[in-house]
């Protein structure tokens, strides 16, 4: 073992402190909260009004320039499609999907449209290590394919299984997801294509806080028609797209076990610990080192002392001789 002198101690300490300084600033940002953009837009989806015409799917496909689907949009047999026991989901060719549910409580089917819910604190955004996602003040969660590395953590993090990956491409893969028609419409104050296409007014577009009020009003004014809950008001910290339903939400395919807090909150426990390790470990372990090697040090000191004494002795003898 190399002996630890003052110089190497400082050197080792400096190296680790520098590492700590560089790395610490990156993690401390994590505890900051997003502004929830109170003026952001939102949509409330009323399941009792949707008839499953798939006009929204068609409008989305056209607006976003997605490939033509295998089955045309007026083919309603798609509602019976099952993959791995699951109903249809978003993929690289469709950003929104309508599914049919037949809850036993009622005598007619219900239809549920899925798309990106545009969370207030999106899990995709907070899990992304290259900042590919942005929550715009208008309320949209958009994605920048130019910096994306393709790690697909956003897909793991999204509690709604929305982002999909263009696996079919070797050189230009990217995340494919609903962007609230941000580029072509929302930016200019226009509602997304699906909302505009809905013939049943099942989708109501407006400021999030306003459509939330509309939803609450409907629940209040037509007692018995809706369950007393707006899905998305509090789920994962609140979403821009919210839902009204006449049956409990778990009967129509909603995950009612998602946390009520933003996803990032369950990661903060770890993120808070990071600067602690970075600052406490260097001192602690160098301390352990000094403790573990104390016997070597003591031996060394004794040897030095002996050498000195010997020298002094010799000097005395010399003086005597003189």
């Amino acid at each position: 073992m190399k002996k630890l002198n003052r110089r190497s101690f400082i050197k080792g300490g400096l190296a680790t402190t520098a590492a700590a300084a560089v790395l610490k600033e990156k993690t401390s940002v994590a505890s900051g909260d997003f502004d929830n953009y109170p003026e952001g837009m939102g949509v409330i989806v009323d399941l009792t009004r949707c008839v499953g015409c798939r006009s929204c799917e068609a409008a989305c496909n056209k607006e976003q320039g997605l490939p033509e689907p295998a089955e045309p949009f007026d083919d309603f047999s798609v509602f019976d499609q099952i993959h791995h026991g699951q109903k249809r989901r978003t993929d690289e060719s469709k950003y929104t999907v309508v599914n049919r549910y037949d809850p036993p409580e009622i005598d007619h089917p219900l239809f549920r449209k899925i798309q990106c819910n545009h969370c207030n604190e999106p899990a995709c955004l907070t899990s992304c290590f290259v900042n590919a996602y942005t929550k715009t003040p208008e309320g949209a969660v958009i994605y920048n394919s130019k910096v994306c590395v393709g790690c697909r953590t956003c897909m793991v993090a999204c509690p709604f299984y929305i982002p999909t990956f263009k696996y079919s491409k070797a050189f230009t893969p990217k995340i494919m997801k609903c962007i609230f028609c941000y580029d072509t419409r929302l930016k200019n104050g226009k509602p997304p294509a699906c909302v505009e296409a809905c013939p049943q007014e099942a989708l109501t577009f407006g400021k999030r806080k306003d459509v939330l009020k509309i939803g609450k009003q409907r629940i209040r004014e037509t007692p018995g028609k809706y369950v007393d809950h707006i899905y998305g008001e509090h789920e994962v910290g609140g979403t821009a797209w919210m839902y009204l339903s006449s049956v409990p939400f778990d009967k129509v395919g909603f995950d009612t076990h998602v946390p009520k807090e933003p996803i990032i909150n369950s990661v903060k426990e770890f993120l808070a610990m990071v600067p602690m390790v970075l600052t406490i470990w260097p001192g602690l372990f160098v301390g352990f080192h000094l403790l573990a090697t104390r016997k070597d040090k003591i031996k060394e000191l004794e040897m030095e002392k002996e050498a000195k004494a010997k020298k002094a002795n010799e000097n005395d003898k010399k003086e005597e001789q003189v």
Partner: protein
Amino acid sequence: MKLFSTERPEIPIVNHTKEDGSAWTIKEKLWLGLSVNEYKKQFFRNPVNWFMMMICAIGLPLILGRYAFGLGWVTHASNDYPWGLFLGFGLFGMVPLSASGFMLGTTVELFGRKDFHSIERLALLNGLLGYFFAVLFLEVDLGMPWRLPYPMFVSLGPAAVLFLVAWHVATYLSVQIAEVLPALFEWMGWLKGKRMIRKWVLGLTVAGIILSTLHQGALGALFTYAPAKIHPLWVSAQFTWIHFFVSSIFGGLSMVIIASTLIKNYMGWRCDEEFKSNLDYVTIGMAKGASLAMITYLVIKIVAVAHDQEWTYLLTGWGSYYMLELTVAVVLPMFMFAIGVRNNWVTLIRAGAFIAALGIIWNRLNTSLVCFNWQMYQEIPHWKEVWITVTIYAIYFMTYRFIVYRLPIVYEWKGER
């Protein structure tokens, strides 16, 4: 190798100079002092090499295909299971088994336990190669592998756990390269370089502890992004990171026991007397450390169940699977280690190490694949995905062996050091 090493006294190479006093060239060192024909002969005589070549014959074209036709060509292109074997095994499984570098580095350099010196270099090499190949697995899995440096230099997302993983794996990889370089410098005969690194050893070791704590933990914390998708027994906001970190301690130690066992049995010609005679002693020492880490791990696993109030889950089918994992992957090898240490039964310890290392991989696959989407369906990886994973592991094995054959890892360099 066995044949040649008994016939020719100067092989295996342990010195800069031959019998007659002339120096070995680097090229001769690379060929292990054999002629090309002799080298070929020993290579093809070994059935392991035929097995490896068979794996690569199919695997390498598959890897090329993945880059030419996209990930969708080799995987099920699942949007429900974005991560498959490449990460589940390659990243989440390989990294904890590579914690050996920092464990033994700390033991020898920081705690001054020079009695573990003979195994230190093997542990460092095991760590370095494990990390390097974890990054290779990542490069197969990433949609745009050419953008690997983006999180460092192009577009920074500092609040993400993966950002920490990226930075820490990158810096720790450099630390480990620096820690293994002295062996290369000795072998090349460049002593200046070796002395230079020697001065940094304490700083490197402490940096290794910090970076290991954080990114072993960060790999666990990555799963806390999916609290609603992974079975609650396998993920916990407060504890997953520390479960991953503590289990990496016995994972790394077990992996060194496995590597040293294989080297002792199949590469005896390369080991020197010090390595061979010390091996049982250091194996027992490492098993002692590993069993301590295992009891710690068991307790904090139970603490997590208690803290998150998940007792009722233990009574379900998933709960039984959880108990099975803990019993087979942790309790069983822990007792094998403890009994082995007590009675000096090194063979029992070595068997325990195999179980413990497989147990770590099992735990990581459970977290990333089996218990992921536990309320949906089970994804079974595509055969091409499995084959590519095996291929990269085979390349890892061959690289590992290539280096141990040559550099002074399990033997001491006799020449100038």
